[in-house]
């Protein structure tokens, strides 16, 4: 019996039959994966027919949390959603913070496994005692916040936490997201479309159980150590002020800020679109996920708009990446995308790719239903984003993402899509950050930094690099030496963070978690012995499981590579010679 930390139960929901079943979570099942993302992948590996249609009833949608989710451990409110991705056809998952995970913990379910397809639009309310199926035709087309408010009002309970899809998810845009706590996004691999394909508008959770830890005093003292490490971190002030938007200038300074769809790595007008500018001119207050001391998120007001965010990826995707210097426009787009449930990276990529292809005359407006668009044309970008959301006109094709869309064009155009395994590349040019490049290439959900986030290579800690990875070069972003070791280590810490669960900004980027302190936290939290060595081993096994699963989905060794455009030798304008060195192997 799992007594401490874990809820110890799994909830299975069949939408076709509108039935649910509660199962105990076997300790021996969960011990080799800890929980969270790793447990979700294991579940998919064991139960999913790999050939199933990702948008069909057989796909399995899993909401998973870990043993320490919602505990006193700072920033521990994360949860992961996993399914076969409709965008990439391989493993898809996405983690988010907010309050949802913490509330889900109080229902006593470590995993909520959803299969089948409802015959009409509905939402689910999960409490500790089971599931209520609520028809909601009136929610069709509603934004995230409208849906969330409607459910809270209906339930007369404002502590209900809601993870919902917007119109983009309902319309099965392949890169649509799920959004909880109003603004916390499970983006990237199209989990919103999977939910939409099941006619599931929202999953609401409200629990009345408590979370008990095995040894409260020891747990508290371990938590205090972590709190201290966060509060005294040298990046604390910067992250508190700007959150991830600090990266606009940081990446620009080292020539890797995607500009005009990765054609340039330095953006001349960065000061107009930077995190500093945002904090100074538009930020109203900080926002936080449950029990977080960093409160990295922000609320802003600009003209008639106001919203939470944006994160760096959205900010960059709708400024420099699309050649726009209009910060208020990016803020407007942030609110729109989050409320409609669209992934900002993929939306930015498909538009940026079209602009570059039109600039290079590889795609004629006639082939795009008359769409002719160039850098920084904000009115047109806005229009295109709307068409994608509703799959209107040419938007219907763009809603399949850049890679699938590119398949009906020539080779030159196809080569310009910045993706790995069908997932669009994040905003960070791999040519100037080698460990990240390696991460994008091998990441199991496609071009992605969060599978390892080797932020270490940007922190210039030479001695620590030598100690941990055997060479000072691991801390040199342009070197290749030591990067395999850095990425292997970071992949494990990333998975560990996602499995506990905790926020990767803190656990990983700020280098707060390691095998030793996590071992102590888990022991005090769950009463189960997870020695550092054992953890390292099972995390490695779980990463292998990702790859084995992807092989079933049909990926090959050759897919673990970077897009040709980011390997080409003629290089980014405006950069120094030092950056021109490009690995031949990638």
């Amino acid at each position, binding site marked *: 019996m799992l007594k401490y930390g874990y809820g110890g139960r799994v909830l299975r929901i069949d939408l076709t039959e509108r039935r649910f079943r509660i199962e105990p979570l076997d300790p021996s099942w969960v011990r080799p994966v800890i929980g969270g993302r790793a447990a979700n992948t294991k579940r998919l590996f064991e139960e999913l027919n790999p050939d199933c249609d990702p948008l069909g009833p057989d796909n399995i949608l899993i909401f998973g949390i870990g043993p320490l989710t919602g505990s006193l451990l700072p920033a521990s409110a994360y949860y992961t959603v996993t399914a076969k991705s409709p965008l990439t056809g391989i493993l898809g998952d996405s983690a988010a913070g907010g309050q949802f995970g913490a509330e889900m913990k109080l229902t006593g379910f470590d995993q909520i496994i959803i299969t089948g397809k409802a015959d009409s639009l509905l939402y689910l309310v999960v409490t500790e005692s089971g599931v209520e199926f609520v028809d909601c035709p009136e929610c069709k087309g509603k934004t995230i*916040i409208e849906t969330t408010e409607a459910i809270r009002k209906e339930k007369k*309970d*404002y502590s209900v936490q809601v993870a919902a899809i917007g119109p983009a998810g309902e319309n099965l845009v392949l890169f649509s997201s799920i959004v909880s*706590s109003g603004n916390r996004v499970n983006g990237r691999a199209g989990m919103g479309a999977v939910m939409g394909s099941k006619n599931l508008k929202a999953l609401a959770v409200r629990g009345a159980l408590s979370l008990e830890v095995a040894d409260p005093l020891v747990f508290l003292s371990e938590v205090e150590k972590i709190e201290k490490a966060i509060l005294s971190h040298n990046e604390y002030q910067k992250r508190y002020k700007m959150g991830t938007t600090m990266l606009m200038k940081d990446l620009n300074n080292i020539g890797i800020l995607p500009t005009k769809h990765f054609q340039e790595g330095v953006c001349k007008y960065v000061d107009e679109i930077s995190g500093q500018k945002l904090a100074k001119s538009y930020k*109203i*207050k*900080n926002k936080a996920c449950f029990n977080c*001391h960093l409160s990295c998120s922000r609320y802003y*007001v600009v003209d008639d708009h106001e*919203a939470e965010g944006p994160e760096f990826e959205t900010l960059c995707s709708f400024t420099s990446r699309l050649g726009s210097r209009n910060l208020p426009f990016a803020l407007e787009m942030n609110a729109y995308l989050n409320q409609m449930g669209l992934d900002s990276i993929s939306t930015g990529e498909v538009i940026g790719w079209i602009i570059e292809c039109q600039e290079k005359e590889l795609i004629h407006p006639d082939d795009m239903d008359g769409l002719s668009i160039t850098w920084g044309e904000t009115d047109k970008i806005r229009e295109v984003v709307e068409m994608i959301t509703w799959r209107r006109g040419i938007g219907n094709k763009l809603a399949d993402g850049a890679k699938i869309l590119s398949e009906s064009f020539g080779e030159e155009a196809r080569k310009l899509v910045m993706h790995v395994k069908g997932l669009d590349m994040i905003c960070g040019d791999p040519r100037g950050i080698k460990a990240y490049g390696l991460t994008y290439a091998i990441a199991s959900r496609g071009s992605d930094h969060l599978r390892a986030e080797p932020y270490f290579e940007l922190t210039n800690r030479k001695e620590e690099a030598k100690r941990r990875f055997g060479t000072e070069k691991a801390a040199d972003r342009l070197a290749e030496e030591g990067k395999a070791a850095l990425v292997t280590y970071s992949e494990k810490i990333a998975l560990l963070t996602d499995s506990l669960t905790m926020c990767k900004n803190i656990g990983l980027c700020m280098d707060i978690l390691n095998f030793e302190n996590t071992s102590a936290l888990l022991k005090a939290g769950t009463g189960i012995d997870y020695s550092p060595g054992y953890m390292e081993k099972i995390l490695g096994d779980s990463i292998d499981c990702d790859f084995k699963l992807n092989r079933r989905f049909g990926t090959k060794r050759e897919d673990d590579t970077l897009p040709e455009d980011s390997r080409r030798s003629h290089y980014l304008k405006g950069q120094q010679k030092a950056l021109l060195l490009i690995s031949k192997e990638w």
Partner: protein
Amino acid sequence: MNLYEIGIDGAVVCNQCKERYCDCCPENAITIGSLGEVVVSQTLCTLCGVCRKACPIGAIEIFNDFVYVCDLCGGRPRCIEACKEGAITYEVDEAHHPSLAALKKETKKMNPSQKQYFYLKKLGLEERKRWRRKHA
């Protein structure tokens, strides 16, 4: 509690209101301490929930057979020390604070969660006027 539609987040804590609506406990389990704090005798309490219903802002919670209400930590509230946003103050800003007597009427038919929401929204809308002025 988060009010997503207006960007307001807030924690509802006891105001030590002068009306003392919660001081209606049928078991006399509630008394008012020397600092003005609400004191609940967990031995006299029968968990009937009357106090929870009486508070116009939902500042009393019952969870796992225990009545939770602010007791001012004996005069040195730890939450004020811990909050780095300055969101909690000891003194009530009377000029900007809605009257609890008015709230009592307005929230009559509501459950505690709805009361918390209503109260925070009232406070929040005032706060937002200040934001707008700042960004006009």
